């Protein structure tokens, strides 16, 4: 891979940060994380604000009773908790597996000291 690198100004600590940022491993890590976090964030924001919007704009619908006196408004609010737990679970599972192993690769590359010259 050819990366046009200006002078690799390694930091005082001897780590060449900009070079690491350009590695395939790092880009892969950022891309994978972004691909999860962005849609997940948009989803939870939309889902969260649907609740107050629904209560304000469609109060009669939200008051519809589902089981006994339990209505849609209460079930929707409860589902927000489930939504948060499920998204957190999915993120952590992905992070503990995929993100951590990709991050470990970047760290290994830095420790090998190859990142400056190999590029």
């Amino acid at each position, binding site marked *: 891979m050819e990366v046009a690198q200006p002078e690799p100004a390694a930091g005082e600590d001897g*780590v060449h940060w900009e070079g690491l940022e350009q590695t395939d491993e790092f880009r892969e890590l950022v891309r994978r994380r972004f691909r999860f976090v962005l849609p997940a964030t948009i989803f*939870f924001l939309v889902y969260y604000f649907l609740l107050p919007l629904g209560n*304000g704009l469609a109060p009669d619908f*939200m008051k519809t009773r589902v089981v006994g*006196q339990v209505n849609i408004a209460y079930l929707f*609010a409860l589902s927000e908790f489930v939504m948060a737990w499920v998204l957190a679970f999915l993120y952590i599972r992905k992070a503990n597996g995929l993100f951590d192993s990709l*991050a470990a690769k970047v760290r290994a590359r*830095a420790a090998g000291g190859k990142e400056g010259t190999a590029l």
Partner: protein
Amino acid sequence: MNLTLALFLIVVAITLVISAWAARRARTTVQFWAAGRQIKGWQNGLAIAGDYMSAASFLGIAGLIAFNGYDGFMYSVGWLVAYLTVLFLIAEPMRNTGKYTMADVLSFRMSPVPVRSAAAFSTVAVCASYMMAQMIGAGSLIKILIPTLDTNLKPYFNWEIFGTRLDPSITMVGLLMMIYVIAGGMVATTWVQIIKAVLLMGGAVLLTFLVLLHFGFNVGHFFDAIAGVKDKATGLNFTQPGILYKYGQKQVFGVDLALIDNISLGMALILGTAGLPHILMRFFTVPDGKAARASVAWAMGLIGSFYIMTTFLGFGAATLVGKANICATVVNGACVGKPNSNLAAPRLAEFLGGEFFGTTGAEFLLAFIAAVAFATILAVVAGLTLAAAGAFSHDFYVGVIRTELLHGKVSEREQVMVARITAGLVGLLSIWLAARIGATANAAALVAGVAFVIASAANLPAILFTLFWKRFNTWGAVACLVGGTVVTIWLVAIGPGWTVPAVEHPAFPLQNVGIVSIPIGFLLAIIGTYLGDRVKADRLAEVKFHEIDVRAQTGLGAEPNPVVA
């Protein structure tokens, strides 16, 4: 001796023993500020929960639901969903790039003097508003639950400081939190928070269980009872939205005012948590990014279950006790004086104790819930004091004055000493401020909300852009930290509800100002950045971005957890 007082004293004794034990583990800066980065993920999760579930959430939410039904639940939802923001965007990068405070992360890329000063300013503003609400709450709680304590101590508080007479209850809470923080730093604070989280969960589970037991574990019956409670003003029953947020009454710019207010509150709740300095600080206490992640998972499990239980407490109090019977003084089974929503949970405990265990049971359960609420407040104010002291001493004194302006090297000994002194000063100042503001009770609930708005309008854009926006620079950071804080306070000050009684036609229509001030905070950050770019004020910020980018994502070069000698 009074049972409540006895339980209070047990809580106090346990926490003091912990502080004494922790004092030996708070000698170096990393021990004092970050508990030596030795806190395990699950412990930190408990401590986050303990730091977060304030008296406002325990007594406040239960009370809101007990008095307004369903709408009170809205706070609970926002407070849990907020942790997704923390988990996805904040927790790991903070641990990977930071040292002790939020400003450590910012000054990674920015000029330390302006950014640390500005961050200290916004941090202190958040902590001060949050802390005052907690202290005022603590003061009124003690007065109601153990009135003898307050009246017996009153004669000793017969002097004034700068024209304000200190309040015995508030002063007691303040002194206790000062002892934890000064003696035991983050170690003691963490353990006080863990114990409190366990007590609080225990109390909530017990009350929920008893409420369900009352209804024979038939949720259908329970909801029938809730639907039987009607709000007089709106005619709605307590399972229906619209009692607290009176939709369809007033309009601003053609949009329903109650709806905007509710959405504005939601914005502050789900974005503000990620900028609360005392929560951010907790992520520096764990060994690595993975543990930071685990601590959010634990915190979300606990906080979520707790907030779901608040519906049982609140609805339970509404159906079993009733709004009319929730107040400070009950004589012959009837209320003397106005209903007080903060007492919904304690009064519910008293009722359930009486139903299942007789008179002694009623007394004991009331005392237990009161002690839990007391421990709750102590843990939260300790965390806030530590965060405010961190901003003053670590960021401002050590980071700006000693290191940058005087070009000095600061020894560990001096840093820890200064940390302890500032913690003491912060404590004294908040005791005085709480006593001064305490008179205007309306302000208490409001200032707590202000903390969330400042956190999301000032701190959140600064953190997010530092981590993820390459062009972000010192000007942008200072603009949102200072501007976001000032705009928020100003909007609240000219809005409704600040003054007692509320003004009829305030200059700004919303009580929850987040919907306006949060976008302004982000906008200021962007404008500041472009202006700084134009004058080429900050050359380092962009270069350093590569470093913080790699560090935040991978944990490379993160502050290690020192091996204890």
